């Protein structure tokens, strides 16, 4: 079978007029487990061919996973018909400024690991067994998932784009649970499957399952130590609420009127850094624009939003794509950062972050986050799998999970300290075509965490 780049070239040839062909091949395996036994295993080999057609600034798209000439010809016909119908129905020019010209080249990255790309089930089976063994040592049961994937993306366009990128990723989640339902959590994400350590992860999860009865905390505002996974979850939402160039250009973004002003504590330095050591790197976005580091908040001051070609044209003023198209042609909801990195601070660990707190909360991770008010970056969600009361500077005893309703930017404004070593956090969700991503985040301490239930 031809490789993705050849397939992309073949598909592009069926398009008349301006267009782009994007081929994505995914090979992946995901093993799930519950109650210290394997439960489900999904192995996938699939290739999507996406054809984008432009007519007078309007886009039409068609995707198929059949690579015969007939199927490609039909997909091209549908994409062109869609763009032409859009141009006629809109009765005016569209908002796409045209496909970007090819860059001089792409920087190499280390996000591809040939061992991971084998999609070998054996290390997965061994990881499950390791988690089961640690759970048994502690009288607990293990729940979680192990996965590895390899994704090859090839992109050609009538503007001369001709690019291919290969990435791999691996993820292991371990939840250990006692008979009363108390749980502890650990998650690891990396480009290489060999970087996952199932035994160490299970031991970290086990340490969070403590024998005491959880205390109930009433609603109110509390000092909080958010561990890296909780911070990563909040920053993921901030990425789309604050840094989406399209929403910002339309006056709907959370940084409306605030670029160039202080929006967070001076210790907050947030960037989109696709080549940061612990992130999941990529060479280019879905328009072939190279990925490059972009400072978003520096010393607490908001500096930039991110763009794809379409949102940059909408923003005007010389704005250019920053390499953040999340679909070919740019998603109609706008671009978003995919490699957020929050720089760490000086605290050695969460224990040091908790030291100044007389009475507060330590949160391992957050769950079911949802937006209450987008411009205020106001979210609600619950804590999960390891919530503790901090008393007299010590992470003292378990708390029953709480609901919070709070603004991400407000929490960053009141951030007092961060841990020294950020790590890659990810929810490990793989909906649709695999696109592994995560946020590099440290733990942090903030004031006034608003518990609402």
């Amino acid at each position, binding site marked *: 079978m031809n490789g993705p780049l050849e397939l992309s070239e073949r598909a592009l040839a069926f398009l008349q007029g301006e267009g782009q062909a994007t081929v994505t091949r995914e090979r992946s*395996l995901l*093993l799930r*487990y*519950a*109650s210290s*036994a*394997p439960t*489900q*295993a*999904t*192995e*996938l080999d*699939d*290739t999507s061919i996406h054809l984008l057609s432009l007519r007078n600034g309007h886009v*039409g*798209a*068609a*995707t*198929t*996973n*059949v690579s015969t000439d007939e*199927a490609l010809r039909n*997909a091209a016909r549908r*994409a062109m*018909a*869609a763009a032409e*119908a*859009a141009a006629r*129905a*809109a009765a005016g020019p569209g908002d796409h400024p045209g496909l970007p010209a090819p860059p001089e080249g792409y920087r190499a990255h280390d996000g591809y690991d040939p061992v991971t790309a084998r999609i070998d089930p054996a290390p*997965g089976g061994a990881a*499950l*067994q390791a988690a*089961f063994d640690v759970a048994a040592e502690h009288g607990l049961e293990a*729940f979680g*998932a192990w996965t590895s994937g390899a994704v090859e993306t090839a992109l050609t366009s009538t503007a001369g784009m001709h690019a291919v990128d290969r990435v791999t990723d691996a993820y292991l989640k371990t*939840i250990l649970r006692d008979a009363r339902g108390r*749980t502890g959590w650990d998650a690891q994400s990396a480009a290489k499957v060999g970087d996952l350590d199932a035994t160490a992860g299970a031991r970290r999860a086990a340490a969070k399952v403590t024998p005491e009865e959880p205390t109930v905390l009433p609603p109110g505002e509390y000092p909080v130590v958010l561990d890296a996974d909780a911070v990563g979850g909040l920053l993921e939402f901030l990425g789309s609420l604050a840094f989406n160039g399209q929403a910002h250009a*339309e*006056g*709907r973004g959370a940084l409306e009127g605030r670029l160039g002003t202080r929006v967070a504590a001076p210790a907050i330095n947030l960037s989109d850094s696709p080549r940061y050591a612990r992130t999941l790197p990529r060479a280019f976005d879905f328009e072939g624009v190279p990925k490059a580091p972009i400072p978003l908040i520096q010393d607490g001051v908001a500096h930039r939003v991110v763009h794809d070609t379409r949102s940059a044209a909408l923003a005007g003023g010389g704005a250019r794509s920053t390499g953040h198209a999340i679909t070919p042609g740019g998603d*109609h909801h706008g671009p978003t950062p995919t490699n957020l990195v929050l720089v760490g601070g000086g605290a050695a660990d969460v224990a040091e972050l908790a030291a100044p707190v007389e009475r507060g909360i330590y949160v391992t991770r957050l769950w*079911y986050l*949802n937006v*209450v*008010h987008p*411009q205020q970056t*106001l979210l*609600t969600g*619950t804590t*999960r799998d390891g919530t503790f009361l901090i008393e007299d500077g010590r992470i003292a005893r378990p708390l029953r*999970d709480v*609901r919070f*309703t709070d603004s991400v930017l407000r929490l960053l404004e009141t951030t007092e300290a961060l841990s020294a070593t950020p790590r890659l956090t990810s929810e490990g*969700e*793989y*909906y*649709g075509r695999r696109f592994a991503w995560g946020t590099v985040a440290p733990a942090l301490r903030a004031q006034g965490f608003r518990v*609402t*239930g």
Partner: protein
Amino acid sequence: MGAREPVLDLLRETVDRAAGHCAYAEARHVHALREDLAIHDDLVDAVDADESAGLGIRVLVGGAWGFAATRDVSSAGADAALKRALAVAAAQPAAGARPLAPVMPSVGHWEGPCAIDPFAVGLEARLSHLFAAVAAMRGDARIIRAEASATMVRTRKALVTSDGTAVTHTATECGAGLEATAAAGGEIQTRTYPSSHGGNVAAAGWEHVLGLDLLAHAPRVAEEAVELLTAPELPGGRRTLILHGEQLALQLHESIGHALELDRMLLGEASYAGTSWVAPSDLDASLRYGSERLNVTADATLPGGLGTFGWDDEGVPAARTMLVENGILRAALSDRQSAAAAGLPRSGGCARAEGFARQPIVRMTNVSVEPGDAGSLADLIADTDDGLYLESNRSWSIDDRRWQFQFATEVAREIRGGELGRLYRNPSYAGITPQFWGSLDAVCGRQEWGLWGLTNCGKGEPGQIMQVSHGTAPARFRDVQVGVA
């Protein structure tokens, strides 16, 4: 596609080849065609057509499942996928016996309703339909974005199992919606119709979109978005609520539907979606889930429902099940494995898979609150002395046991002396599942009851998006905490 479709022969060959290598095998072929249209103001945002086809092979070896999916729909492709599924199952640690609830083999074809084939309606005509509605939302300078979208899907499935089932299925889904965003004075508000998550989708053809009458509702949607800009915030307190059918559908989905998935109750989803506050032992009809007014069904035979089919993705025939009767828990949503694990005699027929590349897991079908005796919405409002009427979901969140929730809606209206009054913006409410459903004291009648299609229900690893419908009528709840966000 009929039961003699050639692809069934390929699936039969594959399942036959699995014999002797596993305790159970199933082979599924899915062909899916989808179009999504999105416009805003005078621009087309997206015209996306997506077509996919492939095979998914699932085997059970020594208590461990293996599943492999491929786009190579050929004998060689199926054979390779079968070998990978067997290898994946074998690579996992040994698992104990994993019995499956029995099922009678089925052979046949099922086809959902579709009066006007949406793929046969010209693309320009469909876009023009949306543009007309968007134009009717524009005019006031405070409307900064007016949007419309439409979705149409056709899915053809074929399933063969080692139990002797060989069935095919064709379903069409169609829906559309509007959204107006207004901004002024540093405030932004959004109003939608007919529902806030991409519109209302049904198992139907383009006739469903025409029936939504987007054009007629568009001016009101824009006016209410603007009106919300200067409406007061909803003050906190404990109030009587009447929930519009759409909001009640999501409330039902999150706090009853997911909580009654038997795999969650058995801890099988603890690693991702979560567990449930309901235990399998509660299925002995001893658990009060809500007030006597609460009657909940799971019905995979409901015309127009996104959870309607002839057989589920394990070949179990569609069924209607009483989940909650007069407030008492009667049954859960189950597949063959969870039913057997809980000691139930048969599967509830709730195994569903997204496309060819995912394996079946326990899913809602059409989970509905049955109509009550409170008459029309006007009757219910007239019967309410002091309360709030909440419409259109804006935000939702619930814990991993489906115990404590918080919802926000686009709009709340005061009810005083049986009449609707002023508008409030940013309304929210929160509660504890059994207490909240225990406060249900009235459900409107059949004349107000309708299906609400949700197309974004996420579950499983790797993630699966499922389409479900919920039948609801407006309902009243007493003493609910509001103004929590």
